[in-house]
């Protein structure tokens, strides 16, 4: 019997990590929320979640003292990591939200929605969107094409490398709903709030 994998939700001072933890418990797996370097070193998989402002989240991440351990885990040890919403945005090179540098793990910039039809499309984008699966992925196992996921965001990833595109959806303009680059996964939507398909996605990640 294989050992269950150690999943760590990175705590870098931004709130709302409890829903992700609860959802993972719901699928019968364990994870823990930690801000300790030792836990990141000992982990098999990482989740980067969080809500709020890009600039203050990056500042929190730098202040946490976890940057080196995270880069070692993700870029050198190639541990699977799942970024959720702001957590995925942080993996980009830069963001318009505060005009600061991100982690730079993805060849992408974070940009704000620029809406032409302002009566129909309101920002933040809040709601359920069908997402198109753009490539085969372990993360998408048992998830039907055009499944609906819950979104809550004002910014999105502008990808330079389209081979990283995993899911696409539309909010006046097409934008990436999920990305995958080797061991790095990111979802703009909230799987922890997306009913059964969301739980399936988290299960796919945890059991990867």
């Amino acid at each position, binding site marked *: 019997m294989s050992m269950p994998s150690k999943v760590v939700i990175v705590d870098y001072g931004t709130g709302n990590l409890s829903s992700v933890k609860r959802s993972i418990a719901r699928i019968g797996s364990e994870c823990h929320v930690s801000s300790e370097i030792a836990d990141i070193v000992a982990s098999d998989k990482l989740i980067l979640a969080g809500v709020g402002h890009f600039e203050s989240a990056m500042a929190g991440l730098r202040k946490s003292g976890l940057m080196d351990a995270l880069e070692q885990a993700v870029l050198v040890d190639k541990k699977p990591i799942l970024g959720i919403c702001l957590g995925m945005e942080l993996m980009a090179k830069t963001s318009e939200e505060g005009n600061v540098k991100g982690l730079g793990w993805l060849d992408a910039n974070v940009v704000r929605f620029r809406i032409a039809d302002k*009566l129909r499309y309101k920002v933040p984008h809040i709601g359920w969107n069908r997402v198109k699966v753009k490539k085969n992925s372990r993360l998408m196992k048992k998830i039907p094409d055009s499944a609906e996921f819950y979104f*809550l965001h004002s910014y999105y990833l502008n990808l330079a490398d389209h081979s990283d595109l995993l899911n696409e959806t539309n909010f006046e303009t097409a934008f990436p709903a999920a990305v995958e680059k080797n061991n790095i996964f990111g979802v703009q939507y*909230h799987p922890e709030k997306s*009913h059964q398909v969301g739980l399936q996605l988290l299960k796919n990640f945890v059991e990867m």
Partner: protein
Amino acid sequence: MHRPRIIPVLLLKGRGLVKSVRFKNHRYIGDPLNAARLFNEFQADELIFLDIEASHNNRLISLEFVNAVAEEVTMPFSVGGGIQTIENIRSVIGCGVEKVIIGSYAAQDPSFIRKASDEFGSSTISVCIDVKKDLFRRDRVRIFNGRKAAGFEPVEFAQLMESNGAGELIIQSVDRDGMMNGYDIGLIKAVTSSVGIPVVALGGAGSENDLIKAFEQGHANGVAAGSLFVYHGEQRGVLINYPSGKLF
């Protein structure tokens, strides 16, 4: 491709789930956690919980309750009731809530919305605007569960909330609450055409057709209702329900 959210609104009074008519005559409906569980089974788009006496009684919605809901559901939900400080917001979202709803206090101290959105991001801050016609049939914002005039006209107040960083507005008609005779489409449309943030329509929905109208004619981004999702039939028997299949 973008469809509006269909949102049941659950009113809390003490530990019970209640439903009002024009913000009065609160009828006990049942256990709010049980309702949350049922809406979760229906895979509802989102839920709103409002503690209707919290602001008036100068206390916060029960965190124990909010935690219990978060344990129960796999869907987004937002809560309101007595939120007045940054610490209040931190403790509510710490329970696992996406958005907090600020009602009375947003009108008492509009600058609080600026502080809150700077701290937590716009998409975390939702403002509920209760609107009632005054003696001259003019739409006016009300606070403390409809008890008091806030001194604002709704469109002007909606724009103020947007400029202070609110990420969403819930526009609730006090006059239509529990009447099930349709939303105040004129009011909804006046707000949706004046702001760039999402607007949720609330108050008056009596049929699925009303939900469709709020979207097609009022351009609402969310269509919320209480009575429609807790009552069944002309006698208003209690039956938790949710549109099956896709309306939008």
